[in-house]
């Protein structure tokens, strides 16, 4: 017990995660285009769905109300982009910094702890995600897809989605052998993107509708949709609880694995 107390505080102390963020701000000053370009993918999807599929699909029912297809898809795209952004940052970028650029090795030779690195990286992913979510919200408003003032609650909802997937991505990255493993990430996130009641309602699955509950993104989509419609039900609490539980489990695993990997 005393040994545990002696070692754990030293490893899991979080004192200066903001240094990691400072590093990224400096590094991305010259690569701001990469940051900006991340905003366009969900936008392209939204515009394509709006212009191309909108009239083919017609109205979709959300919370008992019939809404145009683009208004149905937009909140889902917002939650999905929070997921994709968090996953992208916590897998490809983290893998690069951990294994190839060895930026974490450099940081850990200083008073920085593995927990500083993990918290810093996840905070960065969240900040970036909020930037995208915020600007996407602006686009939604401009296109007349916002239905309620409650929509600002979509931002914390996206932060929760980002936290969940940054944790999952970070934990997964600690198991990766190399670049080719990233293909697994793409293949694993795609069904989440396509089948989390993003492009068609869960009711389309008939009696199999409960299956989508397995997807953490489904809960995020439900939250953002609730924020946009302003219709809050008790199920919102359940969605939040699921996302919190998954993110805590994933973050704990990520911190433990990072410690094992970096402090060999």
């Amino acid at each position, binding site marked *: 017990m005393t040994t545990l107390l002696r070692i754990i505080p030293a490893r899991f102390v979080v004192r200066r995660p903001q240094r990691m963020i400072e590093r990224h701000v400096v590094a991305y000053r010259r690569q701001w*285009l990469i940051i900006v370009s991340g905003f*366009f993918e969900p936008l392209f999807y939204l515009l394509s769905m709006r212009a191309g599929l909108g009239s083919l699909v*017609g109205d*979709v029912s959300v919370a008992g109300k019939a809404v145009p297809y683009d208004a149905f898809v937009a909140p889902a795209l917002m939650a999905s982009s929070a997921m994709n952004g968090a996953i992208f940052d916590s897998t490809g970028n983290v893998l690069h910094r951990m294994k190839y650029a060895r930026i974490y090795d450099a940081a850990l030779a200083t008073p920085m702890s593995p927990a500083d690195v993990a918290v810093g990286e996840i905070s960065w992913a969240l900040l970036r995600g909020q930037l995208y979510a915020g600007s996407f919200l602006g686009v939604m408003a401009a296109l007349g897809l916002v239905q309620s003032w409650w929509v600002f609650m979509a931002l914390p909802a996206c932060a929760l989605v980002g936290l969940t997937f940054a944790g999952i991505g970070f934990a997964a990255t600690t198991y990766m052998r190399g670049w080719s493993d990233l*293909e697994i990430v793409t293949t694993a996130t795609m069904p989440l993107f396509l089948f989390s009641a993003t492009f068609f309602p869960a009711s389309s699955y008939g009696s199999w509708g409960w299956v989508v509950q397995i997807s953490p993104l489904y809960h995020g989509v439900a939250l953002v949709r609730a924020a946009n419609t302003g219709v809050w039900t008790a199920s919102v609490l359940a969605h939040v609880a699921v996302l919190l539980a998954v993110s805590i489990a994933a973050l704990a695993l990520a911190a433990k694995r990072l410690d094992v990997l970096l402090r060999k």
Partner: protein
Amino acid sequence: MAHFATPGPLRVMSGHVVAFRRMWKMNVMSSFLQPLMYLLGLGVGVGALVDRNTGSTDTLGGASYVAFVAPGLLVTTAMALAAGESMWPVMGGLKWQRGYHGIAATPLTAGDIVVGHGVWMAVRCGIASAAVSVALALFPDTRSWGLLPAIAISMLVGLAFAMPIMAFSITAELDGAFPAIQRFVIIPLFLFGGAFYPLSQLPVGVQWAAKATPLWHGVEVARWCTTGNVRWAATAGHLAYVALWALVGTVVAVRNMRRKLYS
């Protein structure tokens, strides 16, 4: 004594085949599972919404939505695969693993390298499209002999993207432009190139932009094949346009490769 040598491009290609055998599982995922998921998610899932909407079937030329989307996915899969394969691996061959420099030290020419890599990419597109076709043949709505010519069209569209992008990749100094190509060319084409809905749904300006690229022409012809509604004269024109992209791309790529490796 007569000596039957393997043609240069084939010798270059055999190198790619050997490298591919080590990582084919990953490629199965990206080039087979991903389009299949899009087919299920958008084709079947969104299709249910589209098909219940009266009037939509007319807009889609009488086809069900999943039958409309299927050939589009076949061709966009080839486009995405060819684009990825003609960016980082090409830069790797010149800058990182420097495999092209190794080949350049043999009697093979720049043309052999470029055409060899091109043929290999076409084969990859063919394999991926064939795999997706097998899956499509399982569903009554998308089962068609037209899938066979559609596979060939996918290969041609793959080349129409691979060769011009390869020509660019050979001269690129940094890989920073590659994600931008993915984000601002490939993904918009995937979304606005006529795979998921008729171009007539879009504003006229966007329609013309989409029609300028080879993707739409390939999707259009592939769709005629799978829905059994081929317009022969127009087909020839569309395919000639797609082939022109591949051809011009090849010529420029060979020229760039020669300058890079042999001067």
